[in-house]
């Protein structure tokens, strides 16, 4: 009797669902979540922010540790190299400082010319903030990364991000202390560009397939345009989110499409995406409010 009683008690304690049903419940909940989050994309930011508040500081910490370690490591191994480099660099410095004097004179002339051509509101004049890349996506499918500046540093959604002298991407999500950037090589990214020399418009879209070759897609170029390899593509005036005149990259292999209406080709980005560490964020959002009002 006692044995039996115990048995019953144990059985009562271990009421558990079959994993099969749990999986079904999870799938069902996920489907609802997908639909809901797709429908109310803006309302999910609060949720993301809380998750980011936990994960981001940890990522930051690990990055800091990694940076210190790699610094020490490099210090130990590269002293010899540095000495050798130093002597060559000193020689170079002499040459360059002489060259620099010449260039400075040229620059003075250039500034005058710029004023003449009214070009000084080009992107030399955009206000910029430097930010560090904390982490990038966990697998190879997306091409987004997270930078360590957010709304408290004056950033907001749709600001353009540059590295070196080329466009890198655009801020798609901005939280208090970090923001998410979608790079132009991402499969879902698309930018309207202009050829600097011929002022023909084109469409620059990321493509996962071409990413490994270091190029992205260039399409919708008018058939009449005469494009040669190496022509610079900059962001266009027409674009609604990207500020005009930022260098995107250089055209390559532009050919006429089978439709005979347009041309398409490849573009080598000006920014180097393999070792992104510091980026510049232009703290100016393109004001397309008027345009949106018209479109509505």
């Amino acid at each position, binding site marked *: 009797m006692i044995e039996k009683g115990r048995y019953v008690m144990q059985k009562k304690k271990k009421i558990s669902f079959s994993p099969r049903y749990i999986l079904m419940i*999870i*799938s069902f909940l996920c489907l609802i979540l997908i639909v809901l989050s797709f429908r109310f994309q803006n309302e999910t930011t609060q949720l993301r922010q809380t998750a980011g508040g936990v*994960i981001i500081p*940890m990522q930051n910490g690990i990055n800091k540790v990694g940076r210190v370690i790699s610094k020490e490591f490099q210090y130990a191994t590269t002293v010899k190299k540095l000495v050798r480099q130093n002597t060559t660099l000193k020689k170079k410095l002499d040459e360059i400082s002489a060259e620099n004097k010449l260039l400075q004179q040229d620059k003075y002339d250039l500034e005058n010319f710029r004023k003449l051509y009214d070009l000084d509101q080009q992107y030399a004049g955009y206000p910029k903030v430097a930010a560090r890349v904390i982490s990038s996506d966990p697998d190879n499918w997306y091409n987004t990364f997270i930078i360590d500046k957010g709304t408290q540093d004056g950033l907001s959604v749709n600001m353009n991000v540059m590295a070196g002298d080329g466009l890198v991407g655009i801020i798609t999500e901005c939280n208090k202390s970090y923001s998410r950037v979608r790079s132009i090589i991402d499969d879902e990214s698309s930018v309207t560009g202009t050829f600097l020399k011929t002022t023909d418009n084109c469409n620059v879209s990321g493509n996962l397939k071409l990413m490994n070759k270091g190029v992205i897609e260039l399409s919708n170029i008018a058939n009449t345009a005469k494009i040669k390899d190496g022509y610079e593509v900059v962001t266009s005036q027409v674009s609604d989110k990207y500020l005009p005149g930022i260098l995107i990259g250089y055209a390559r292999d532009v050919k006429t499409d089978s439709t005979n209406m347009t041309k398409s080709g490849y573009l080598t980005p000006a920014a180097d995406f393999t070792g992104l560490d510091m980026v510049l964020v232009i703290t100016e959002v393109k004001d397309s409010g008027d345009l949106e009002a018209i479109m509505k």
Partner: protein
Amino acid sequence: MKRYVFLFFMSMLLFVLQTTLFHQFSLGNIEPNLILILTAISGFMYGRKMGMFTGVLCGLMMDLLYSNVIGLSILLFAVIGYLNGMVTKFYYKEEIFVPMISIGVSDVMYGILFYITNYLLRGRLDFLHYF
């Protein structure tokens, strides 16, 4: 209970490592997908329920931080955890061959499912390339 707590912290740790440090270890643009491996292993070692639990955790973190739609990765990871839980009866401590295969299969499956949900539905048909 202990296992749940352990898996919770483990998945968080691996997620952080994956997104920061492990980009350094990539071979030819391919990185080990740690959180997927964790999901597969926990399903394999502890059964379907644990696999799903880890899968939901990992998927949630991934969705919240890196994708536009919440729920998709949760579903994928949970399914992978569940399927790995189904082969848990082949689990012996010394055996290394079976988990290796199951992790490999999970990775391929994850890739295919991800391709179907995120790319095929947008009309990118060149399956072999993304593979």
